[in-house]
């Protein structure tokens, strides 16, 4: 599964774009987070790797912008393994192992759309960073 960040401008925010694409392409699109109001929307979704290209194309055709979400990264040099971040993660992507080392599961992480852990880190070891994306950024040029 690949995560992509969709932005819907004000003029199309009321159209049922995501459901139309699900029905048209018959691709399961999993909504991870969504912030939508009258001024526009930002939705983080997960799509199967093999359908990524056609899904991105379909969203762009309907006027949505598609980006790779920024990821959360923990700088292991700076991290002191206190664990202050653990309870702030809504999806339990941060845990402690038996050795009391803080372990970060990036696959579970919601990325910068959440960022609840960032300002809780006393060592300032958590940052949101741009993912090194190949496919999507290439597509952006089209």
């Amino acid at each position, binding site marked *: 599964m690949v995560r992509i960040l969709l932005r819907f401008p004000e003029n199309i925010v009321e159209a049922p774009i995501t459901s139309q694409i699900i029905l048209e392409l018959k691709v399961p699109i999993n909504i991870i987070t969504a912030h939508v109001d009258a001024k526009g929307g930002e939705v983080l979704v997960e799509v199967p790797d093999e359908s990524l290209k056609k899904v991105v194309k379909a969203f762009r055709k309907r006027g949505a912008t598609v980006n790779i979400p920024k990821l959360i990264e923990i700088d292991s040099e700076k991290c*002191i*393994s206190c664990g202050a971040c*653990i309870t702030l993660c809504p999806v339990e992507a941060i845990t402690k192992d038996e*050795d009391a080392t803080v372990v970060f599961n990036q696959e579970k992480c919601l990325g910068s759309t959440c960022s609840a852990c960032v300002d*809780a880190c006393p*060592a300032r070891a958590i940052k949101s960073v741009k993912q090194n994306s190949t496919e999507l950024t290439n597509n952006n040029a089209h």
Partner: protein
Amino acid sequence: MKKLVESSGVEVAFREVDVVTTGTFGAMCSSGAIINVGHSDPPIKIEKAWINDVPICHPGAAVDLYIGATIMAERQSFEYGGGHVIEDLVGGKEVEFKATAYGTDCYPRTQANTRLTKDDLNQFYLLNFRNCYQRYNCAVNGRDETIYTYMGKLLPRLKNATFSGAGELNPLMNDPDYETIGIGTRIFLGGTQGYVIGEGTQHDPKNRFGTIMVRGDAKKMSPEFLRGAAFTRYGTTLYVGLGIPIPILNEGLAKKTAIRDEEIFTSVVDYGVPRMGRPKLAQVSYKELKSGKITVGDRRIRVSSLSSLKTARKIAGTLKSWITQGEFFLTAPVERLPVDSVFKPMRQTEETPFVANVMQEAVTCNESEEVQAIAERIVTRSVNHIVVVDGDGKLTGIVTSWDITRALAQGKTALADIVTRRVVTAKFNEPLETASKRMAQHNISALPVINNEKKVLGIVTAEDVSKLLGR
């Protein structure tokens, strides 16, 4: 020691074990470093000084300075502070030093700007006046909004909890009667050998909240065990690595050092209440705290540690290897830590106003009433706010004279259509200052005062606050 006492008993453990090492690595705000920067030519009697834009205290003669861990940079405040300056110096980095002075006959210079590393300093001693709390509170937040505290980020309505301390690995917990700890006890401090120089401030031995004052040569320390840190919207601090070897002088100490996390309890405290006597909601053991979840009433709450158990273990391990390799020698204290001192609150000669002091009776109504009736009540009672309550006197909304004026202008008659339901409230025992800040924040002029069951006790208005201030 813990396993040995469990399997073979105290007697055997006493014979077999010579020393138990301990460790802790947590945020310790009452920390800092004494530095002497040497004399410039012409000399300067420093009045104000900064390192990397962080103000440095000048408590003594011309060039003696103290870097306080919690003092924040003037431009990058809340992100960089004294703790970071100490870490940077310890790590060998060059720092920007700036000083100003008024100039005297003997110290004519009025300004100095230079760059310094730890090698340029004559003395660079960590001098921490309160470290190594024996145990600490577990923090939660009962308020409706996220708060940022020295106990970290606390989510609303008890959605998370935080704690600090190494529990069974804590130095003072392993010698709770301070039989072996006192002035002159040699310890692990920041990666090198340091000393206990006395009891720490707020030392509270009877309540098992003992603390120590320590000193060590920061030039020999390592940033692994001395880290600057920033707590969002609270400020900067220093994480200090500290370990104490406990010599097993008697069977009693064998038993005491066998202490387990499940035997160490602390209180779950509501940091959402802005008072010194914050309510204690539950008792929990360090075993529960370290498990990641605690129980408060019928709720299971996820709990985060603010101190690093991983580094605490490393400290205890390092200290052990120093001792076995003959690099570290234990010392007997010259004077033991006090065991009966008390920690007093501040003597206050000026009264602080609380909501209860200015709160007035609230004029109320219920939702089935008509706008016209409320308009009349506003006039006869001469108030601007009417609190909407249900049959049990519990808060359901608020209407202002402005809401009523608008409703009358628009020809609306049903109160239910114009009630504000998301009401910002106050508690009767909170300081007036926090309540009035909340009014300003939400740009409103009154707060209904409610109890925990949402029952309306009264109302506090901006007018009442200004009357009090103008007295």
